């Protein structure tokens, strides 16, 4: 599955704001904000996020990636999904 970065970013942004009840206001929360350390997503939230990623993009998030920097912000998540899906299609 090849995905477009812009599309994925929009999808992930919409999922995050709906699921975790916040907005990317550009001040308190930006696409680079660490959503875990800022308290937007807690440990159960992390579990839900992984469920979403795995189901939506048919990827597997492994333990080392879980809670690593690669899934902490919107921008990181977008890159993560892009890399993972490309990896699979090669």
């Amino acid at each position, binding site marked *: 599955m090849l995905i477009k970065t812009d599309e994925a970013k929009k999808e992930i942004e919409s999922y995050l704001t709906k*699921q975790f009840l916040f907005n990317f206001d550009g001040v308190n929360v930006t696409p680079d904000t660490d959503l*875990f*350390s800022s*308290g*937007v997503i807690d*440990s159960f*939230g992390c579990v839900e996020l992984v469920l979403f990623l795995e189901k939506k993009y048919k990827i597997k998030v492994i333990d080392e990636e879980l809670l690593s920097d690669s899934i902490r912000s919107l921008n990181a998540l977008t890159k993560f999904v892009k890399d993972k899906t490309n990896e699979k299609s090669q």
Partner: protein
Amino acid sequence: MKKASELQRCIRCTIPETFPNISFNEKGLCEYCQETPDSKDLESERNQLQALMEAEIEKSRGKGEYDCIVAYSGGKDSTYTLMHLTKHYNLNCLAVTIDNDFMSSQAVKNCYIVTEALGVDFLMFKPAPSFMMNMYKTSITTGGVQNQAAIKRVSSVCNSCINLINNYMIKLALLHEAPIVAGGYIGGQVPKNASMLNMNLIQREQLKKPLLEKYNSLFGQGSSKFFFIKDSLISNANRNSVTIINPMLTLSIGEEDIITAIKDLGWIKPQDTGRNSSNCLLNDLGVAIHYKKHKFHAYEFEVAEQVRYGLMDRELGLKKVTEIPDFSELTDQMDKVGLALSEI
């Protein structure tokens, strides 16, 4: 403000129009019900989760002083969980109860009766009530450490308590070299794959560290021992991860059958814990405050999921989420926490 009984609700489950970001289709079916697989697929999903959990259980057996630390509230779900792990899986469990100073006296009795009947070791831990009351009051007046999304699953009062309990269970798992920590969460209370989660404790603490100051400023400098795990405890332990399991998520069993099953152990349903709890006298206050603030019952998500999955009768579910306790019935709890109605 509409009463809970007047809200538009999904025609299949019970989720109300006031639930955050909920949408319904033209038939009146909520988005969760639209996505729910049919019962055959649900069963195979549950079986898969069960197989994963069982594989982990077999891998963990006999590795420490205990196989499993069970977060045991004395309520019906954790009682069933403890029984299931002990009798069905034959695990060597340590049952641990946190006495939050709001336990129903029948719930305390149930803890002793059940653990004795099952022949498991039992530990009761009671943090100083002065600390707990301050934690409750602060959680109510400030929202505490609850992140915004958690309001969908739990009241702010319960959330702080759950954080404290989870942290203590993990600490005990390290001390006793127990590879597993078990909870009695049911569907809707936690995500489905919380039936079995490997938790890396070093990462967990790293993630939480930025919140340390928030905890200290809200609950007092001494609060970190309740919510954090010291690096040295992790580095001195024989493991840096624990497996969290919630076996109820892999079972297809409803409230009535649970209560029937645990009665054989001598468990008696407390009569003073409100409609939604079977151990805690503070729960109704959390429910009342949650409804006042967020316009939906703190148990909406859980009840809706139980109804959707056929584990609870819709009528019973509606009763559970539409009867909001009145503050006039909760003056004892508010006095004990030191809370005036004007502060809510």
